[in-house]
């Protein structure tokens, strides 16, 4: 019902809703987070290992934002983040190395291909009105099939051995620090796009259809169109990040984009950072990267801990750790303010 009320508010007032902050307040968190993240290479710039770690963090932040657009905004459970990134990565690698296209053509094309695949999946899910579970299974099937395709088409992908990518080595993507800034720039752009979407009519439609699909449909929101739109946009984000990473690493293998590696991590990140929030995916990616680095000494132990984190987070704090903490702090501050007001009145009396 909340969705209906919100959606109808757009009709009646045509104005910004009360929940929409002003321009400066809306984009300030992105600027601050971006600036903080931009300082990291100053500390880690001379270590190849640490740069690898923070590039990975930026990459997963980008994946998580893309997934957040699809799942957090419109409730489509896409269990194929890794596969979509892989579509981007392998397309770009093959287009540039095999077909000889320049990077500036290959990467956007790869991004479009990933968007097309994601959009198609979304369109199938929407037009057959598959629920959460069937969307999840179809996209999971796609993920695993893609993985097997990578393993099977050895002539193109060199299977498990992985593919060495020459294109991009002589550009800034081949250096040590610049790829981080490229990915960070991409993350910031994604965040700006996400915030822009949130503040636009599209954002209202997303929230309306996520809260109550039927009510949204009744108030005139074209649920199908917005779902496919989210699928397209999110997949494009994921595909672009996957392609950029492929060229900066100079090497990809099926493991780079494996379900167990990418999708599981992204789920943990969003569980931590909070679904459908602006900085949630970024905070989640940051915390996860630190945790991952911390646990790097034991692979098996790590799997167990991630499982426990997923269970504990979805069970205990379904909104995510970050949003829960933020709202706790807010409530506390409000209470303090309230108390000081009361005592102030008393004093004046």
């Amino acid at each position, binding site marked *: 019902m909340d969705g209906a009320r919100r959606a109808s508010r757009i009709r009646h007032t045509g104005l910004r809703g009360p929940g929409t902050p002003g321009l400066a307040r809306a984009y300030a968190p992105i600027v601050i987070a971006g600036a903080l993240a931009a300082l990291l290479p100053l500390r880690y710039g001379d270590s190849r290992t640490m740069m690898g770690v923070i590039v990975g963090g930026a990459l997963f932040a980008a994946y998580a934002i893309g997934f957040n657009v699809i799942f957090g905004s419109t*409730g489509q*459970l896409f269990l194929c983040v890794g596969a979509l990134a892989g579509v981007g990565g392998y397309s770009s690698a093959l287009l540039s190395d095999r077909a000889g296209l320049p990077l500036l053509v290959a990467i956007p094309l790869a991004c479009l291909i990933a968007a097309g695949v994601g959009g198609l999946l979304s369109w*199938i899910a929407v037009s*057959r009105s*598959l*629920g*959460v*579970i*069937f969307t*999840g*299974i*179809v996209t*999971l*099937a*796609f993920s*695993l*099939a893609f993985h*097997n*395709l990578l*393993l*099977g088409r050895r002539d193109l992908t060199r299977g498990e051995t992985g593919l060495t990518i020459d294109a991009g080595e002589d550009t800034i993507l081949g250096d040590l620090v610049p790829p981080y800034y490229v990915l960070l720039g991409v993350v910031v752009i994604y965040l700006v796009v996400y915030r822009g979407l949130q503040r636009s009519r599209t954002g209202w439609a997303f929230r309306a259809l996520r809260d109550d699909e039927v009510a949204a449909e009744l108030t005139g929101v074209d649920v199908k169109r917005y779902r496919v739109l989210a699928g397209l946009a999110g997949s494009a984000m994921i595909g672009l990040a996957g392609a950029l990473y492929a060229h900066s690493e100079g090497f990809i293998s099926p493991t780079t984009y494996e379900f*167990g590696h990418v999708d*599981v991590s992204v*789920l943990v990140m969003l*569980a931590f950072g909070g679904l459908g929030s602006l900085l949630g995916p970024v905070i989640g990616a940051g915390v996860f990267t630190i945790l991952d680095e911390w646990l790097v000494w*034991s*692979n*098996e*132990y*790590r*799997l*167990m*801990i*991630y*499982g*426990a*984190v*997923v*269970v504990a987070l*979805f*069970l205990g704090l*379904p909104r995510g750790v970050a949003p829960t903490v933020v709202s706790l702090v807010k409530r506390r501050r409000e209470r303090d303010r309230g108390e000081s007001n009361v005592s102030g009145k008393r004093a004046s009396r």
Partner: protein
Amino acid sequence: MRAVVFDGIVLGLQFGLLGVGLTLVYGLGGVLNLAHGQIAVLGAIVTALRIDAGTPTVLAVLIGLAAAGAVALLLDVTLLVPVFRRTGESRVLLGLLLMLGVGFIIEGVLGWRYPIEALSLRIGGGPIDVLGVAMRSGALLASAIALGAAAGLVVFFRFTAFGKAVRSVIQDETGAQLCGVSPATVRAVVLTLSGVLAALVAVTRSMTGPVNVHAGVDLTILALIVAVVGGLGSVAGAFAAGVLLGIVNTISAHFIGSYITTIVLLGAAAVTIVARPAGLLGKGRE
């Protein structure tokens, strides 16, 4: 060719048994148990550990089955309680994500404690001639157990009062409750049953090849494919789909290649969902 089809049937019976456990739990409470394969592996590893400790094989297998059932029951009375308190999509989503996490925990713990443990039951006796095809005795025993379990399930669901109660909850939870059936009890029993069935598959599978600590994900995915093609919630459908996919699997693996085979199976699940969401034998449940 006949040998390939027979191998497919052997494999398919196990697929069916694997799918049944998943399909029952989903049909009952809307929880897609993504830890199904990991629970199966847990049963297998417990069996292997008992055998290592000198327990007679049959007893070790029973202990393994009981362990898997106990873990499933434990999940039902702990983690799944808040899941069943919810309704609709939010129940489905929470159940799926929680069980995904549980799967990682089980695989993580097993891989951490017993990284190289694997169950491999060697069934004595030479190949046995079936309609002109020499079949391994292990494969035949595995199929016999799967058929026995399937027959047991049919009798249970058709002829016992409790089996009928289970079916009533699958059809209509509220209606069943009004008739005095407790969905919670039914769910507890069925989850335990699904755990035992999962472990049984891991045990029968180990008669034709080793089941190691990391086999869980593949088993879960197979169970998912079978359950989807058979129609989520349909026991007969799971067996039909299992046998069908088993035959498709061996034929495709024999003539085309193993990578394509996996893609074919996954494609079958995806196409089923898109074209006929209720599955092969599923009734159009809304």
